[in-house]
């Protein structure tokens, strides 16, 4: 529901036939990254060359737009050790980017990632990229098959992180800018955007209620799982049993739009190195291995426990303002085993693991 304040800000409509024009103008201002038909019939977030490439009716890409604010290999410092002493310089990626037709879950996840990197000490390399990235989200009138965003308050309509919220009203889109960055993406586009009427805004609210009703009963109720995880009342035996259904691929971490664990390494040689941040996984055995050989999470069940503590505990919820899960459902698709978020949360709730 848009608040009165939000309504005052900047709520417009855009006729569907004018979308091309808007995208063309955005293309003139920076890179536009949107869901596109990728290779091999896969839908992927990709930089577009023309507005026609943007998909409007699509299954949420398996790879989230996280890779555009936090790439898997992210160069952050240039180091030169040649002759006259070592020279170091930060690497900032200041490309102007529009992340377009991002689903509300992914938009909220980007806001989460930004909050993580904003916390003191702030990470300038991440923030310089995020500052130049505008997130334009598209509400989900019909939920996706695997998503459970309602359970983590991250959808199906925009719930934070969207600089601009788009809603498909049928003949046109409702376009709501919630901040200066969003407004900037709408400015200078005379005639394209008309002020929204009360009816149009109400229509959006109706569509949101309708979309929420589509979610079934069996989604992913965090409540009791969060309580038990936070108070250490999940039996080790249950973690042990579940960990036998995990194949430690790391997929859940890499594909998760809110996971951001990383390692830092220097790449190169011969006096020139690039310090890179690289995606890492808390599910990997040596993630916590110390130089002495001691490993506080040598057992897989402890690593699994760690993952779900970070994602679902009250302690982190309080620290971060939200759970570390936006209910996008990708971990279900990517898990080589059977230990995706809904499965584990259900097992904790029922105090029993069922692999089906």
């Amino acid at each position, binding site marked *: 529901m848009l608040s009165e304040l939000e309504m005052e800000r900047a709520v417009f409509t855009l006729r569907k036939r004018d979308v091309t024009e808007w995208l063309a103008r955005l293309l003139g201002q920076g890179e536009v990254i949107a869901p596109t038909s990728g290779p091999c019939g896969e839908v992927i977030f990709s930089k577009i060359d023309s507005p026609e490439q943007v998909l409007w009716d699509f299954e949420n890409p398996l790879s989230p737009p996280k890779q555009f604010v936090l790439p898997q290999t992210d160069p*952050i*410092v240039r*180091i030169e*050790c040649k002759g006259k*002493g*070592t020279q*170091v*310089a*930060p690497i900032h990626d200041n490309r102007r980017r529009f992340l377009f037709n991002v689903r509300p879950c992914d938009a909220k996840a980007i806001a989460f990632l930004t909050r*993580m*990197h904003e*916390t003191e*000490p*702030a*990470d*300038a*390399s991440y*923030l310089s990229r995020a500052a130049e990235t505008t997130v334009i989200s598209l509400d989900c009138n019909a939920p996706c098959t695997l998503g459970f965003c309602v359970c983590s308050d991250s959808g199906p309509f925009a719930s934070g992180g969207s600089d601009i919220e788009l809603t498909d009203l049928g003949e046109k889109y409702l376009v709501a800018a919630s901040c200066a960055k969003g407004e900037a993406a709408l400015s200078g586009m005379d005639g394209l955007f008309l002020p929204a009427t009360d009816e149009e805004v109400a229509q959006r609210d109706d569509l949101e209620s309708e979309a929420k009703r589509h979610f079934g009963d069996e989604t992913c109720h965090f409540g009791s799982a969060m309580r038990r995880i936070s108070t*250490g009342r999940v039996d080790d035996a249950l973690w042990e049993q579940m960990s036998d259904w995990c194949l430690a691929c790391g997929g859940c971490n890499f594909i998760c739009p809110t996971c*951001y*664990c*990383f*390692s*830092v*390494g*220097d790449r190169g*040689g011969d006096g020139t*190195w690039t*310090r890179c*941040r690289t995606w*890492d996984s*808390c599910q990997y055995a040596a*993630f*916590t*291995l*110390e*130089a*002495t050989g*001691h490993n*506080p999470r040598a057992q897989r069940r*402890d690593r699994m426990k*760690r993952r779900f*503590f*970070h994602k679902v*505990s009250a*302690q*982190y919820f309080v*620290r971060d303002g939200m759970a570390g899960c936006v209910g996008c459902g990708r971990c279900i698709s990517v898990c080589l085993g059977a230990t995706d978020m809904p499965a584990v949360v259900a097992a904790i709730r029922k105090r029993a693991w069922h692999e089906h």
Partner: protein
Amino acid sequence: MNTDVFVPQIARIDAVRDETPDTKTFTLRFREPREEEAFRFLPGQFVEVSVFGYGEAPFCIASSPTRPGAIETTVRRTGRLTDAMHQLGIGAEVGIRGPFGNGFDVESARGKDLLFVAGGIGLPPLRSLIWYALDRRERFQDMTILYGARTPQDLVYKDELKEWETTAGVELHVTVDTSSSDWTGKVGAVPVLFGETTLRPESTIAYVCGPPIMIKFVVQDLFGRGFQDESVISTLERMMQCGIGKCNHCTIGHRYVCRDGPVFNFKQIRELIE
């Protein structure tokens, strides 16, 4: 504040001192005088040292902020990076990021007796605080240092140990697990040193650093003598990468050893959720 948190400052190795066959103390001086000026830290904090071409590793600052200028760090050879660092000579450049971590709470220790209990490579993190206390001697009461290593040659800061032994108001006792022909001191694990000194649990803050097994027995002994949880302090070790609480390698529950620690008292340690 510089928020390019992964960019190291450049420092030169000013001096190298052999402590043991596998441990050296490096004196590092920032290349830029204004960086040296601006570098402020608390005892107990650590830095991420870049050995260019090998990566970064966290090391505690073993010198005291009461002696500004160059900082010191004591490094044991455990792998590629530390091997490479041990090959570096005077004038070689390394990177420094930091200081990181919470450091020791020197304010709440004012007016107290200080007990330092260290085993082997556990002395470097405490050295920073020992020198701090010696340099601000009037702020603290009695100082007792109990230190043990496996063999006499594994003792670090051998010259300083001699200095501390003869410093007024400082009681020093040293032991080794296995003695050698010219060792005339005590033999046995660190807890045997408790018999050499009188402890006043009600007025003492105890700082304990060393191998986990040593810490376990020492703190058991201390609690047995009536030390309160909040008065027994240790430093926790974890694999670290970023040093700024973001990479998540060093987490214990929702606490980050690089930010909420590495210094913790035992009340906090008991509350940590593994």
